[in-house]
């Protein structure tokens, strides 16, 4: 048994590496065959085109594309993703600066989503087809149909422009460096409330739908009836039997949704001007910072693959019978 697990794990890791390799190859060629010249930015327009050649040379853009590719791959394997044209620094150091925010932002939002959707779904299965349940399923449908940026713009309009409760952008106040630790923390939270809500609403709608339906399913199963009949309290049924049974499918969904969320973070970071991977990648794309585009994509893909992988493992631990199936 243990050896099969190990084998499957290795297989899974191996295929992940292949996917990462495919991604950077795909992006590398996609970016290089596109029109537009990254060199222009560096050349003072009053100078001769000869200089442009020199700059191009210093950025390795003068070599034929397959040579560039081989050079890029060899250095990428050794962990060197090149130098960002815009930041004039190592791509990895730039990414390390932006990544923590995105990770923190995504995981805080994720926890928030889980708590809220659990709370809502338990409340609504208490009385299936009750007022709360029906109202909520309509609201979730509406939320599901609202694009993230529309939510963001509406929230900013209501809470910043009209009511003036929350700041409309940024991560901290300009003078937050003078604050005490706790004041700074509240400052961060204060700035992040609207972004987190914007990012989370649609995910809450999705998780809620899954959880609610799963809970309803489990409640309708025979063993719950038996438990009820044998006098186990409703609270115990819920906590000890229903939730553990309903949580399993949710984890797969959560793994997938985490990937989708990273895409949503992009828009949220643009709407609220937050310093994360999303904005970094958008800026890199618009300014044709090739190494940074590829570096960021690699990291984001890694996160998605890793989160799916993690979801599968957690699920496998929760339900050992599924192990071989899920890792395939």
């Amino acid at each position: 048994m243990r050896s099969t697990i190990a084998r499957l794990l290795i297989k899974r890791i191996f295929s992940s590496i292949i996917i990462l390799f495919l991604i950077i190859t795909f992006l590398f060629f996609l970016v290089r065959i596109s029109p537009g010249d990254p060199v222009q930015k560096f050349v003072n327009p009053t100078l001769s085109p000869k200089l442009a050649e020199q700059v191009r040379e210093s950025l390795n853009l003068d070599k034929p594309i397959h040579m560039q590719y081989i050079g890029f791959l060899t250095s990428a394997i050794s962990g060197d993703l090149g130098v960002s044209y815009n930041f004039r620094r190592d791509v990895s150091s730039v990414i390390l600066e932006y990544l923590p925010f995105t990770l923190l932002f995504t995981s805080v939002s994720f926890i928030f989503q889980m708590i809220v959707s659990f709370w809502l779904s338990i409340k609504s299965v208490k009385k299936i087809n009750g007022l709360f349940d029906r109202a909520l399923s309509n609201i979730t449908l509406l939320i599901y149909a609202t694009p993230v940026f529309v939510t963001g713009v509406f929230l900013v309009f209501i809470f910043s422009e009209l009511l003036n409760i929350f700041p409309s952008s940024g991560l901290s106040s300009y003078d937050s460096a003078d604050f005490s630790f706790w004041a700074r923390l509240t400052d961060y939270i204060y700035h992040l409330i609207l972004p987190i809500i914007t990012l989370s609403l649609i995910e809450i709608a999705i998780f809620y739908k899954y959880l609610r339906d799963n809970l309803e399913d489990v409640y309708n199963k025979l063993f719950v009836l038996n438990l009820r009949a044998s006098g186990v309290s409703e609270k115990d049924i819920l906590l000890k039997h229903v939730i553990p049974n309903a949580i399993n499918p949710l984890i797969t969904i959560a793994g997938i949704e985490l990937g989708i969320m990273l895409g949503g973070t992009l828009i949220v970071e643009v709407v609220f001007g937050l310093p994360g991977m999303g904005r970094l990648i958008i800026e890199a794309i618009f300014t044709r910072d090739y190494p940074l585009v590829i570096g960021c994509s690699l990291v984001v893909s890694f996160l998605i693959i890793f989160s799916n992988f993690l979801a599968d493992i957690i699920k496998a631990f929760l339900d050992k019978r599924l192990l071989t199936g899920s890792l395939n």
Partner: protein
Amino acid sequence: MIIKKYSLIIIALLLVVGGCEKESPVHSNRVVVALSADITSFNPLFSFSVDEGVVSELLYLSLVDFTWDEEKGNIKPGPMLAKKWEWSKDSSSITFDLRDDVYWSDGRKFYAEDVVFSFDVYSDPGVQSRLYGGFTDFYTDDENHVNVNKTFEVIDSFKVRINFKPNSTPTLPEIIFHIIPKHVFENVERKSIEASEENFKPVTNGPFKLAGWDKNQTIRLKVNDQSFLHNPNGVSEIIFKVVPDYNSRLTQLKKGEVDFVELVKTEDIPGLKQVDYLNISSQKGREYDYLAWNNIDYELYNTNGKIKPHKFFGSPVVRRALSYGINRREILDEYLAGYGQLAIGPVSPIFKGVIDSGLEQYEYNPEKSKQLLESEGWKDIDNDGILEKGNTEFRFKLFIPSGNPRRNYAATIVKNNLKQLGIDVTIESVEMGVLIDNMYKKAMDAWMIGLYIAIPIDLKIAWYSDLEKTPYNFVSYKNAEADKILDEISEETYQGKLDSLYRQLQEIIHRDEPVTFLYWVDNIVVYNKRIENININPLGTIHHCWNWTVRK
């Protein structure tokens, strides 16, 4: 229930956070300036963007300081690192007397060696600084690297002479830039200066010094009380706050979270005027938008270098017709709301001595435009709403840079105006990098772009015929008469003669109308009234901000 407790915690958190009041910075002696993007380097060698230039101007000093002479419409040099300077009689060399009371922020004194070293590094091909290749009046090697031994004579620690190449015509603005500390960078390998750590812990000698940098959030500059520019009553701290979203910049301005925002859009002016503690001002005449008509058949030129007039825009009459047919005043009135001026040529109205005010605008007149087009043979023969000449229909793509609301607005109007003339335009919005690339390749019929003009005035880079040497002549404008005047201008030093040459040139360009000059755009600046002594001039909006004071 566990769940219930969680929800209570969340609600409590929301209340705590929502309830905390923001302290406004009104009482402090600091000023918060909004930036749209973070800078990438504090090193003036690499201050490619305008914002980077603004920040490095506060951290580093130049040999000479320029101010704007409003009356003459020109720049005026004044002392800075150099107390005084003297040109040799034949303008072949210049001697600078340097201040002896300037210290770098790490305590070292500023010497003439720093000046020599700066020229060396700025022109080093291995560094790729923003000025690389610009030292054409100097003794240089093949790679444009300034020859230090031939060029500089360090007379003493605070006196340095620069010798120029024979037959060159150096001017002061060409050799003025921010001096960097030799002792910091001399041990760094030239190629790795660009990515060096020293760029983020800058050793500076300017009126301000870096107090903190929270990446993508704030840049905090504290006043340098050692500096000879230090004004004890002035601003003690300038904070550049990075707010990428435009609307948030305005919201924060209204809330008092930032004090100074530039590039404000005209449609927000009415709302901002209602806020009684805000002042609205503008910097005029630095940027104009124009519709570029490719004067030559670029496909032919790109294949064999031959010059043939463009099938639509080769004729000056057609270009003038297009200028008559576009309602520039409507764009000016409706989008710019008066914060701009109609452009009549490439010379900015701020250059008061040079501008030819006698030229007559091509005022909107579709009838006249149609007549001119007809006189050139463009007529709607088959009644399909599009003009044609022989078998060629007047139909082209107009390229505009994406993400610029003003040009988007103007393009919409241009499209509709031309449609009315019987010209079918498709608007193609492309990313700026692609557009500029295509401009260099001369691979478009028509496009709309803005030009941020240089001070002092320089028309040769854009309107000289030699297409190889004039990379800015994107529309391939050719006129021998104009060339002759441009050549004379670069030889001439007497201002009176220069002014009349510029007038002649403007007349020629106006007659040929190589592009449709649309309008000069004001850079609208809105700031909190508590900042006083602001002097917004063509050289910059926060130019000389060490002179600002804050009302208590």
